[in-house]
């Protein structure tokens, strides 16, 4: 029973859930949606187990570190966080269809992480367990990574919901009141509900991102004596923060709700992904060891 086996189960589950969600949208059969959600739970449990096992494996090798130490571990934790937020939303708001637009983010992360293990290829991430360099040996690492990724995951959910909103609202405007939108789109929640879910997800993501930036600043101050040094990673996290702050204020301003808010949410997630991956892969800075 190795973590790698469970990571494979996770990847396959998320793929299956994604497919079943699409079948659910086209078949409009309630039970299919239930199956998709059940597969999500199975994948989430496998993901949790896999992270736990990897933690134990690292301890077995003599490295006392949480499994948040490199790009591979952060990607699988990102997938886990997306499922966590999604499943909470599913329990609370019972909008089954949104899974079709959220699970692909988690699957994308997992297939990238597990590519080598599943296909025997080499295009994926390095999944070896390596000890932490001195700069990362701190409890702040755990607090910082967890808060950031819960935030990122909430933004992923908001982005998926916003894409649905943009598709749905266009159709709604073109169809008369008495004949509601047909086809797959009839399975989507109404644009009003989607707009509300977008806001709710960002209401979770924004405070978590704020906490993530604060824990990062506190750690930087403790390790280097500077809480803010405008390195590209820090700056991009602030850019993401600015975008979602703009989103939250847009909700109270006429002319900025609806479409523009949905676009802000999508831009916000694009900036989040750049902050997470682009900075390490394209730019360089203090966080370069994080990649």
């Amino acid at each position, binding site marked *: 029973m190795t973590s790698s086996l469970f990571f494979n189960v996770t990847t396959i589950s998320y793929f299956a859930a994604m497919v079943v969600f699409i079948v659910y949208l086209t078949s409009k059969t309630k039970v299919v949606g239930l199956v998709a959600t059940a597969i999500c739970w199975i994948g989430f449990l496998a993901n949790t187990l896999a992270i736990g096992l990897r933690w134990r494996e690292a301890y077995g090798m003599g490295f006392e570190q949480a499994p948040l130490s490199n790009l591979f571990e952060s990607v699988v934790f990102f997938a886990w966080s997306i499922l966590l937020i999604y499943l909470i939303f599913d329990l609370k708001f019972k909008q089954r269809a949104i899974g079709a637009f959220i699970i692909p983010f988690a699957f994308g992360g997992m297939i990238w992480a597990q590519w080598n293990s599943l296909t025997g290829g080499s295009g994926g991430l390095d999944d070896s367990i*390596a*000890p932490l*360099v*001195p*700069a990362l*040996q*701190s409890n*702040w690492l755990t607090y910082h990574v967890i808060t950031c990724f819960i935030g990122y995951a909430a933004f992923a959910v908001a982005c998926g919901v916003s894409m649905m909103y943009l598709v749905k609202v266009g159709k709604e405007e073109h169809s008369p009141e008495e004949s509601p939108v047909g086809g797959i789109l009839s399975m989507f929640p109404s644009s009003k509900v989607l707009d509300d879910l977008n806001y709710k997800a960002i*209401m979770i993501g*924004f*405070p978590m991102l*704020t*906490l993530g930036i*604060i824990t990062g*600043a*506190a750690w930087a*101050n*403790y*390790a*280097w*004596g*500077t*809480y*803010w040094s*405008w390195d*590209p990673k820090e*700056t*991009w996290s*602030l*850019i993401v923060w*600015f*975008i979602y*702050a*703009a989103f939250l*204020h*847009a909700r*109270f*301003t006429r002319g*900025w709700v609806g479409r523009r808010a949905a676009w802000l949410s999508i831009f916000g997630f694009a*900036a989040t992904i750049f902050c997470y991956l682009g*900075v390490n892969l394209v*730019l360089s800075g203090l966080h370069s060891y994080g990649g």
Partner: protein
Amino acid sequence: MSKNKSFSDQLWDFFCSLKLAIVTLILLATTSIIGTIVEQGLSPQEFMQKTGWSESSAKILDTLQFFDMYHSWWFLSLMGLFAVNLICCSIKRLPRIIKIVNEPTLVADDGLFRTFSNKEELKVSGSIESVRDKVIAFLGKSFAAPVVTEQDGSIYLFSQKGAYSRFGVYVTHASILIIFVGAMIGNIWGYKAYVNIEEGGSRNAVWIRGQQEPFPIGFDLRCDRFEVSFYEGGNRPKDFVSDLVVLQDGKEVMSKTIEVNDPLTYNGLTFYQSSYGPAGEPSFTFRVKERATGEEVTVSLRQGQHVALPGGRSFAVNQYWPNYDRFGPAAQIHVNTADGRHGNPLIVFKQYPAFDEKRGGDYSFTLLDHQQRYYTGLQVAKDPGVWVVWLGCLLMVVGSCGAFFLSHRRLWVEIKPLEKGIGVRLGGNAHRNQPAFVLYFDQLKKDLDDTLSS
């Protein structure tokens, strides 16, 4: 809005507007990208060398202050505009919020009841006093103790929860300003510096970035030991540690072993383990055996120094590795011929003393000991504003929790004698998260109905 507003009113409205907030935030987000693409802190010449761009384009970027954009006049102005917007917004809206919290409407008239989307009307029997007492007890138990007002023979109750959550937004806004103040204090009264101390040495001054002269710190800092350790079987560093001692007027007042992520703080200055390097040439002790005679000598020497050996030859150490490809400390040496020609270099491993014996040259070498003195590289920071920044961060977390997760919920009750029986009207609202309040209110009115009919 009237068209003939004075200029100052228009200006005030501009600085208070939410649109300005959104536009400023988006401008801050987009302009911040520049500094993540253009490397910061370069001179135009360095930039031209690094990128191969022309002098004229480097000059344009320099004029726009793109090489230090986060401290440029235009970026700081944008931040200033953001701060002014925050302040004006709060000045405009806060008095109304304070009034809502401190002077709530205690008596709900028909006009107010018409605005509620959550309301309930009941007709019950009994005396007005007994109904009043029942409702007061009910609200006190399941919501919050009400304020009671009697007016024109009717009784009005008002109770509220989470009134202070209305301040969440303003606490969050204030926290940003507090963080700005903290950053300014740090910039004015603080500094960032560095200092390198050799093992056994001490320093009483540090080098502030961009300054020529060392800056005295008013005490001595001595480094007794520096050590770097590696993970087993590799060159991956595990830890850097320095034993530091603070001396005030020659007396030891503090000592601490610092490492990365665990600094030393004394007198408002904090010293962070940041780098290290060799101080001077390493020295070595070898046992050398001349194979022909079996004669053994023990030799101590520094790197690069030539030392005579029995039999008329000499040898020197060229190079040293603290961890040579997983085999631990190793030294590269060469033996000179009697007429001074260099021989082939060979490597001696400290952990494998018998290894060189097998090589079968004229001499066999054993590395008994080596000594490398290091210097420890410390970052030094003084930032009296950092606590103000943390206070701001704390307020931001508290404020956002209030702003996002709590809501101000209010309930009004009117108890009025009717021709037959008593009329009870219940209404309420929440300033956020309406769907949750609708559910809560539905349950509440059922419970009230049960309480009054029992």
